[in-house]
């Protein structure tokens, strides 16, 4: 087909428009809704909303607990049972019970805030702002160090960490800094960054495909046709994001449990 024919089909005709502005980190910054306070920006409001949502759900599911559970009680107990048995009991072992409330809170809080990313009208995963994962990580960090120091004492905790039995003495010079860095820097860093990065990247992809599709929809005919693929991708990624959001909430809780288990273990 010649160019004239293409042109006569009006495929490539269209108004000249300013270029597409790709989404960037600026799309994660929200203005304050009331006044200048950071407490009324969208992410902070979503966090408060998630707390209300989670509390309401689990209070409703447990207040009239019956031997034959209602639907909501069953749903609540399923989530609780999953955290208690799959994460708490399997990872921490015999002393798991006193950590179950902590793990359960982390799991439901992170999960709810992640899933906000694909709920229509909300559509923002709170954990894509680094401050929130960092805040939860601080709690996990303090917990597992506190547990270990209380169980073993500070000196023995550090000694077990740095000096593994059965290796040549001079190797300790090389290996001890690595162990210290792993326990005190790398673990909290990767814990917070993993959650943040997954949520940030996933949300960015969804914005990109949705805004890109919208941009192409108002363009030439051939672009309108391609915009279908862009919207298709954004729909597909929404389902994929749901999977990632659940997985990241699980991994975050699992790793918290693993760090606590490591702190309780007799030898490191």
């Amino acid at each position, binding site marked *: 087909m010649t160019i004239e024919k293409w042109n006569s089909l009006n495929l490539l005709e269209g108004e000249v428009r300013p270029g597409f502005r790709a989404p960037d980190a600026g799309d994660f910054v929200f203005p304050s809704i009331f006044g200048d306070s950071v407490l009324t920006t969208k992410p902070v409001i979503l966090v408060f909303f998630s707390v209300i949502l989670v509390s309401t759900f689990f209070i409703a599911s447990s207040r009239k607990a019956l031997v034959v559970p209602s639907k909501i009680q069953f749903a609540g107990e399923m989530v609780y049972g999953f955290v208690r048995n799959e994460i708490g009991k399997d990872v921490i072992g*015999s002393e798991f019970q006193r950590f179950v409330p902590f793990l359960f809170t982390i799991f439901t809080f992170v999960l709810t805030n992640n899933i906000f990313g694909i709920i229509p009208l909300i559509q923002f995963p709170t954990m894509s702002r680094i401050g929130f994962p960092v805040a939860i990580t601080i709690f996990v960090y303090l917990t597992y160090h506190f547990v270990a120091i209380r169980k073993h004492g500070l000196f023995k905790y550090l000694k077990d960490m740095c000096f593994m039995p059965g290796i040549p003495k001079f190797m300790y010079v*090389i*290996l001890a800094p*690595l162990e210290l860095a792993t326990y005190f820097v*790398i673990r909290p860093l*990767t814990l917070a960054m993993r959650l943040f990065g997954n949520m940030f990247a996933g949300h960015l992809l969804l914005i990109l495909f949705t805004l890109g599709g919208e941009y192409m929809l108002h363009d030439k005919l051939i672009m309108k046709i391609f915009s279908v693929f862009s919207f298709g991708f954004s729909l597909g990624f929404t389902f994929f994001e749901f999977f990632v959001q659940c997985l990241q909430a699980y991994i975050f809780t699992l790793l918290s449990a693993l760090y606590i*288990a490591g702190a309780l273990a007799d*030898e490191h």
Partner: protein
Amino acid sequence: MSLSNSNQDDSKNSQNEENALWSIVGYLLAGLFIWGGIGWGFDRWLGTTYCVLIGLFLGAGASVYLVWLRFGRD
């Protein structure tokens, strides 16, 4: 950091593997950052350029050795 010795079942094994997976990533990162960083510090101090490379190799080697000690032994 072995987990406590109670209930040795199948899920315990998969948990151990998951534990190992994330710990290994952490150790490898720590090795590169710490010894690479020390090498970089020596470069700054002495005005050389090769210490960071030595540090990175040392760190990579040390972290692989540490991973072997933790998870490859027995």
